[in-house]
């Protein structure tokens, strides 16, 4: 399959995240980049923008603005041209999907391909049924690569409301976090720099209400931000980046954003019960001497 990797307003974080895919040899045997930001290709960017090169999948990295050009051609024109000939379009990362960090860049009216934050936009609405969104800042390499293989196999992927494959985005980032017990039993004394504790209560962790598989498939095959002790920043969501990312917003002591699908009453009832007991093991250091 022939793939065009088109960068728009980006940091190239997805490009470099993709280079962390462990089975690259296999991938490069099965796919050909007609253009990629760092991998050599048979075509130059000039050829890509001035001609129409045969292509099966269009990957878009970075947020989109009418003002933004690549090789002197507006990126929206390049998208429009290739969208017509490809089988699928994949927005790679949160910028291309929702606008992301560079929604706030100096370019005018910067958006994702189909969304600006949660709001659907009309600009490319004809392409909605061709698009798969892979959000994340950056996208996880396995999420990208396996989605491309699914396209190659013509798998009928189930997508969520933001066109994200449920295989990866039906989970929350919380699923699989090694700090889960501190969350389950509401042990709210997390301190940075420790193996113990949950960052949801005070330090802004968005994992319980963020869609993603970070703790299921792990990053770089070894770890995740929350396992390391860094709060989930919600980088797969349309709202990324929110503000005051290292603090939990609360109303009357209750976190403003609750775990996905959990109502306030349910949460309060559960919290009330857990306050009635103390689990000694979770109050102590994990390696207790």
């Amino acid at each position, binding site marked *: 399959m022939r793939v065009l990797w088109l960068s728009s307003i980006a940091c190239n974080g997805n490009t470099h995240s993709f280079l962390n895919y462990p089975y690259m040899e296999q991938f490069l045997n099965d796919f050909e980049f007609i253009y990629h930001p760092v991998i050599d290709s048979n075509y130059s960017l000039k050829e890509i923008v001035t001609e129409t090169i045969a292509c099966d999948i269009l990957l878009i990295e970075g947020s989109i603005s009418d003002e933004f050009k690549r090789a002197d051609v507006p990126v929206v024109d390049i998208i429009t041209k290739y969208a017509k000939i490809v089988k699928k379009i994949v927005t790679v990362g949160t910028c291309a999907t929702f606008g992301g960090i560079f929604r706030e*860049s100096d370019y005018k009216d910067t958006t994702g391909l189909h969304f600006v934050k949660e709001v659907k936009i009309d600009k490319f609405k004809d392409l909605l049924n061709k698009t798969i969104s892979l959000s994340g800042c950056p996208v996880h390499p396995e999420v990208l690569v396996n989605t491309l293989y699914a396209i190659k196999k013509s798998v009928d992927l189930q997508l969520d409301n933001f066109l994200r494959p449920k295989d990866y985005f039906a989970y929350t980032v919380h699923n699989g976090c090694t700090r889960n017990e501190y969350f389950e039993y509401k042990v709210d004394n997390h301190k940075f720099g420790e193996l113990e504790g949950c960052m949801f209560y005070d330090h802004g962790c968005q994992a319980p209400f963020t869609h993603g598989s970070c703790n299921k498939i792990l990053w770089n095959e*070894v770890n995740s931000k929350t396992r390391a002790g860094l709060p989930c920043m919600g980088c797969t969501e349309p709202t990324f*980046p929110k503000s005051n990312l290292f603090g939990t917003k609360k109303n009357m002591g209750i976190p403003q954003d609750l775990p996905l699908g959990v109502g306030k009453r349910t949460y309060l009832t559960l919290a009330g019960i857990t306050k009635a007991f103390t689990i000694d093991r979770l109050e102590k250091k994990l390696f207790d001497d």
Partner: protein
Amino acid sequence: MIELIEKIEGEAKLDFSFEDGKIDFVDIEFMTARNIENILKGKSPLDALVINPRVCGICGHAHLIATVEALEDCYENIEISKKAKIIRELTLTFELIQNHFKWFYLVMRPLFGEKQEVLKATYPTQLMAKAIAVFGGQYPHTSYAIVGGVVCDVTEMDIIKVKHYIEEAIKFFELNVVQADTKDFLVCDNVDKVLKKSGDLPDILKEIKKKKYLHHGKSYDRFIAFGENSYFSKGKSHKTITTHNISMDHVKEYSNPNSLAKNVLYKDKYYEVGPLARAMINKVPLVKDAHRRYGDNIFSRIIARVCEIPQLLNHSKELLEQLDLSEPSYIEPSIDITKINGSGESAVEAARGSLIHKVDIENGVIKNYEIITPTQWNLGNGTKKKLGVSQKAMIGLEDVQTAELVFKTFDVCSVCTTH
């Protein structure tokens, strides 16, 4: 004659002027800028730890470390454990190593007519990314270094794991890049010995000699480095004279009428930053030998960058030995950063050279943020009378292909240059 230079984390336009068949001026234009500095204004200071790594996909970790140090510099007193400092230095070092491998295999070797070997770039860089992830959770784009230390705690088992990644990367280097025992390579002070070895680096260096490229890429022979850690010292160097007494107060940025990248000068002069600058200031014997023979040309620039790989791998092993796991990873600052009115600045050595961050905090939010990237130093777009470093390095060349090679020996990064 305008040439679009591609695959440099974006593009740049080089407008070449020729006289008598030789390049007599090159106008360097970077066409895109996201204005991250503006995005930061009005935001909570700690949010900069999340936003700034997104300046760049290949050196974002340097931006994280520069950010945290600039924020900590806003404090009159702040205690950071030795353990946290070592961990930060380790992860930054791993990022430098992954960058150099990528540059060498994805950018440099293909310019010498070799087929791009993607796997030789990805295998060692994935090891380095894993090593960063052990501490930071993921790579790229972690924000694990926070004001007061680092968020992680590590165990002996993590240290063992990281050590194996380092050893594996050293093995890769010895099998592929320079076929020699790294211990011998690190003390080597004679480029002739390297040229006698096999490996992907000696191959390129031999090509440079064979193609008579040894005069290519000479610039001002003037170097500067502001970042300091347990391996690099700050200072400047001109021809054979090195001093360590420099101040960031003399660094000035100037907007550029033809490009979205700003020029940056020290005491009104252009300086080269990066691995060659670091090696000159830190007097790395092998690089000094290359420089003594050939000056600040492409040979010296390439050998300096690749040489940093085993140096830094070796140094990171030593850093791991120094880690005292009983120390705290994080010490909560006595004052919350949002209660501080003040300014801070930092300089770190990123893959491409000195990276400077400056921040003003007022009433709990970022009032002003300034980022000066290494590529701004090297790729400044000066005038005919006062050329930037890479411009000067391209003067006198006879064709644009060779000029592109010279330009790319500076390890060009479009997204960083304009940020």
